[in-house]
């Protein structure tokens, strides 16, 4: 899922300085899984905002609402009946959600409460790790299911660099060398011959490097 980090309370309070009536929108998908913007976290942030303002002797009204997703029209539409009552929308969704809400409610200021970071997986409750960079041209079949783009700090495509030491990356001693992981895995799968197959220079145009992307399925369009 998309993993994000909550912005600091200080930063959020600064963004909310001019406002007294806030619609706080959570999202029931990715940000719920990584415990940063789901119903619980909406409750906690709303509480923090009220406490912080009350401490200064100031008022704030926070409406807590968690939508199923903020990346689909139908769900964002659900706040239409009452969105006019609020001065600002503070969204805890990923960047995609925040932007979609802003696109829908053009006359409203929409603020981000989280910093969207990576596409990742849950290692254990409370720990999330990056696994995919959305490069648009998956090579996982050639590397035993481990991504050289996301898991190698330099996104090398044909083996480790000189900085790989004892299976760790020179960038961070806690970070596994992506290519060490790939080689180990290819050995396990008895596919070490794949290591000898050269992956050619990557065409980055299907990645973000080629500009904002779009995907269309004509057969689904009404």
């Amino acid at each position, binding site marked *: 899922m998309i993993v994000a980090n909550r912005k*600091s*309370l*200080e930063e959020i309070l600064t963004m909310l300085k001019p406002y007294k009536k806030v619609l706080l929108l959570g999202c029931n998908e990715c940000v719920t899984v990584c415990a940063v913007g789901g119903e*619980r976290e909406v*409750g*906690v942030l*709303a*509480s*923090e905002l*009220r*406490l*912080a303002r*009350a*401490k200064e002797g100031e*008022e704030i009204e*926070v409406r*807590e609402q968690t939508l199923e997703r903020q990346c689909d029209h139908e769900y964002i539409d659900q706040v239409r009946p009452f969105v006019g009552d609020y001065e600002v929308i503070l969204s805890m969704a990923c960047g995609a959600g925040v932007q979609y809400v802003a696109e829908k409610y053009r006359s409203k200021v929409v603020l981000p409460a989280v910093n969207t970071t990576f596409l990742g997986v849950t290692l254990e409750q409370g720990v999330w790790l990056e696994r995919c960079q959305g490069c648009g041209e998956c090579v996982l079949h050639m590397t035993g299911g481990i991504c050289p783009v996301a898991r190698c700090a330099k996104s090398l495509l044909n083996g480790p660099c000189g900085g790989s030491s004892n299976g760790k990356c020179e960038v961070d001693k806690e970070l596994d060398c992506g290519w060490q992981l790939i080689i180990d895995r290819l050995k396990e799968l008895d596919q070490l011959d794949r290591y000898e197959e050269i992956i050619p220079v990557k065409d980055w145009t299907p990645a973000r490097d080629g500009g904002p992307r779009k995907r269309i399925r004509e057969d689904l369009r009404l």
Partner: protein
Amino acid sequence: MRLSYPTNVKIVKVPCTGRVDILLILRAFESGVDGVYLAGCLEGECHFLRGNLRAKKRVQYVKGLLEEVGLGSGRLEMYNMSSAQGQRFAEVAREMTEKIRVLGPSPVKRRGDRSKVKG
């Protein structure tokens, strides 16, 4: 044992401190309480195995939130005691009351105004 403890301590009974959610603690402070403490089983002796350890982590987390908000982490504490330790219960009640008395009333306290607490 009929030991007395300060009257300003309001007890909320839970089956295990692991039941205490961070939102419960935050909402308590929102409603104007001056301090909150959790009294859980002795570590290693949680009736539900690890509930008191979860509570300990949550208390640490909320202490951080309270610092951010400006209320200060001193208003929230975790204590451990066995249910047989009546003396300790009273002692902790007195200790926490004194601690909060020194810190003073909560800056978010509003006299008689509970209308802002959202359920």
